[in-house]
C-alpha cells in the first residue's frame, strides 16, 4: 500500500472483463438487430415493387395494401393505451401508496398474474367471455349515442370489434405497465414525499408533486413497452377481432381495420411466393412504426433530463 507507485494502474481485470462483457452484450443487440433488419429488408425489397400481378394478396401496390393495416395497428394500440395508461398508473398508485402495506405486495402479485396469461388464452377469453358480455352495451351505445361518430352503427352482432380488441390489448399490457410503474413509484425517495406532506399536501398532492414527476420517465418507459406489445400483439388480436381491413374510426361495427401483426398471422399460413414477401414487408413497416413511436417517447423523456429523479 505504501509504495508511491501504488496508484499507477495495474490493469484491473475485473473492470475490463465486466465492462467488456457489458459492451459485448450491447453489441449482441446490435448484431441481432442487424440480422433481423437484413432478413426483413432482403425479404421485403421485392414486395415494395410488386403489384397485384406478382402477389395475389395485393389490391394494387404494396402501399395501398399496408396503409389500412398501419392505420388499424396504430388505432388499436392507441385505444389500448388510452385505456391502459391511466388504469395502470392508478393500479400502481393504489398498490404503492393507497393499499395497506401488508396487502400491497399480495395485490402486486395478483396483478402480475395477468402477465402469466398467454395471448392465446386472452384470445379465447375475448371470444368466449368478453365479446358476448360487452355486445349488449355496444348495442345500447349505437342505439342511443349513434350520432357520435365513433359509435356509429350498425352494431356488431358478436361484439368482436376493434374496441373489444383494444380492451383485450389493454388488459394484456396492464401487468407489465403496472409492474414498472409500481416499482418506480415505490422508489420515490421518502425525503421527497415527506417534503410534500410537510407542506400540507394531501395524499394526491403529494403524489402529484413528488411521486409522479419522479416516476415520469418510468411511466413513459412502461408505456413504450406496453405500446410495443400492443402494436405487435398477434394471436389475441387475430382471434378476437373481426378484421376486414377497412379504414374506419367506428368502434362498434363488424367492419374493422386489421392490424399488421394479426394480418400476418391470418394470411401467412396460406401465403406462397411473393405473398410471403409482401407479408414480411408489412412486418418491416410495423417495425418502423413502432420505432417512430418509441423515438417520440424517448424524445419526451430526454427533454427534461437534468430534472430527473435520480439526482
Amino acid at each position, binding site marked *: 500500500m505504501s509504495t508511491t507507485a501504488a496508484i499507477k494502474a495495474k490493469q484491473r481485470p475485473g473492470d475490463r472483463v465486466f465492462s467488456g462483457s457489458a459492451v459485448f452484450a450491447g453489441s449482441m443487440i446490435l448484431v441481432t438487430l442487424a440480422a433481423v433488419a437484413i432478413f426483413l429488408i432482403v425479404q421485403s425489397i421485392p414486395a415494395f415493387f410488386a403489384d397485384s400481378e406478382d402477389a395475389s394478396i395485393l389490391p394494387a401496390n404494396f402501399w395501398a395494401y399496408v396503409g389500412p393495416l398501419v392505420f388499424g395497428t396504430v388505432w388499436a394500440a392507441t385505444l389500448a393505451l388510452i385505456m391502459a395508461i391511466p388504469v395502470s398508473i392508478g393500479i400502481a398508485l393504489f398498490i404503492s401508496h393507497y393499499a395497506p*402495506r401488508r396487502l400491497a405486495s399480495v395485490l402486486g402479485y395478483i396483478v402480475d398474474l395477468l402477465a402469466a396469461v398467454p395471448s392465446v388464452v386472452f384470445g379465447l377469453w375475448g371470444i368466449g367471455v368478453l365479446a358476448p358480455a360487452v355486445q349488449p352495451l355496444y348495442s345500447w351505445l349505437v342505439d342511443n349515442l349513434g350520432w357520435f361518430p365513433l359509435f356509429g352503427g350498425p352494431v356488431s352482432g358478436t361484439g368482436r370489434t376493434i374496441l373489444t380488441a383494444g380492451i383485450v390489448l389493454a388488459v394484456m399490457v396492464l401487468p407489465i405497465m403496472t409492474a414498472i410503474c409500481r416499482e418506480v413509484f415505490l422508489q420515490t*425517495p421518502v425525503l421527497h414525499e415527506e417534503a410534500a406532506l410537510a407542506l*400540507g399536501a394531501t395524499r394526491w398532492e403529494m403524489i402529484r408533486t413528488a411521486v409522479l414527476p419522479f416516476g415520469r420517465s418510468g411511466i413513459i418507459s412502461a408505456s413504450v413497452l406496453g405500446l410495443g406489445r400492443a402494436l405487435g400483439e398477434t394471436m389475441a388480436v387475430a382471434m378476437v377481432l373481426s378484421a376486414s381491413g377497412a379504414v374506419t374510426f367506428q368502434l362498434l361495427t363488424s367492419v374493422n381495420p386489421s392490424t399488421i401483426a394479426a394480418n400476418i398471422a391470418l394470411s401467412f399460413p396460406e401465403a406462397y411466393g411473393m405473398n410471403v414477401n409482401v407479408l414480411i414487408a408489412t412486418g418491416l413497416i410495423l417495425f418502423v412504426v413502432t420505432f417512430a413511436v418509441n423515438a417520440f417517447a424517448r424524445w419526451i423523456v430526454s427533454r427534461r433530463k437534468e430534472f430527473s429523479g435520480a439526482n
Partner: protein
Amino acid sequence: MSKRIEVKDLNVYYSKFLAVEGVSLEIEPRSVTAFIGPSGCGKSTFLRTLNRMHEVIPGARVEGEVLIDGNNLYDADVDPVLVRRQVGMVFQRPNPFPTMSIKENVLAGVKLNNSRISKSDADELLEKSLRGANLWNEVKDRLDRPGSGLSGGQQQRLCIARAIAVSPEVILMDEPCSALDPISTLAIEDLIEEMKQQYTIVIVTHNMQQASRVSDKTAFFNIAGTGKPGNLIEYDDTTTIFSNPSVQATEDYVSGRFG
C-alpha cells in the same frame, strides 16, 4: 396566527420499540423553543409528532395528546393534512423536489392551495421567500434550473424558503443549519428572530450556541442507554438551562465546550 402547543404525556413507538417516553411540555405562541440532546435520543422523532409527520413512517405510532390551541392533533377526526398546513417543517437533510426548478420548488406549497396565483404575486412571493432564506442573490439568475443542482447548503436554504412560502403558523425545524455555512446560518437565525414575531417556532439543534442565541426556551432530551426510550429531562427558559440547570445531566451536557 401563532399557536400554543401543549404536549401531554406523549409516547412514541416504532412498531414495538418505544423511542420517546412520557414527554409533557407547553410551547408558548410567538416563541422559539430549542430541542437539544445527544444523537438518537428522539428529538427528531418527537418533533415529527408535532405535525403528525411520524405517520409517514410505517409502524410509527403515538400515545398521548398534542394540543394545538386546545385542539388535540390526535383526535379521531382530525385531518393530518390540515395539521401540516398549519405546522410546517424543515428537515435535517435538504430535500428539494428534484424534478422541479428552483422557482417551482419554492412555490410548490403555494401552488397546491392556489393554483391560479397571479404571476406577479408568485414572483413577489418567490423573491420574498428566497430572500428570507438568504438564497436570493445566489439563485436569482437561475430560477429555472433544477433545484437539485445546488450545493448542500443552497439546497437546505431552498427548503427553508419553500417552507416559509406557505406561511404556516408553527414552523418545526430539524437541524436546519447543520448543512449551512456561518453566513447562511446567521441569516436563518435572523429569519427565526423575525418570524418569532408572528409564528411559533420549534428548532432541533446540536449547536449549543445556536440554541442559546435564538431560543427562548430549551428542552433537553436524553437517553438512558441503547434500546431505552428517550426522555425529556429538563424544559425551561434557555438562560436557565444554560446557566443554572436543575438537573445534573443537563449541566453536563451543556457545559461541554462544543461547537
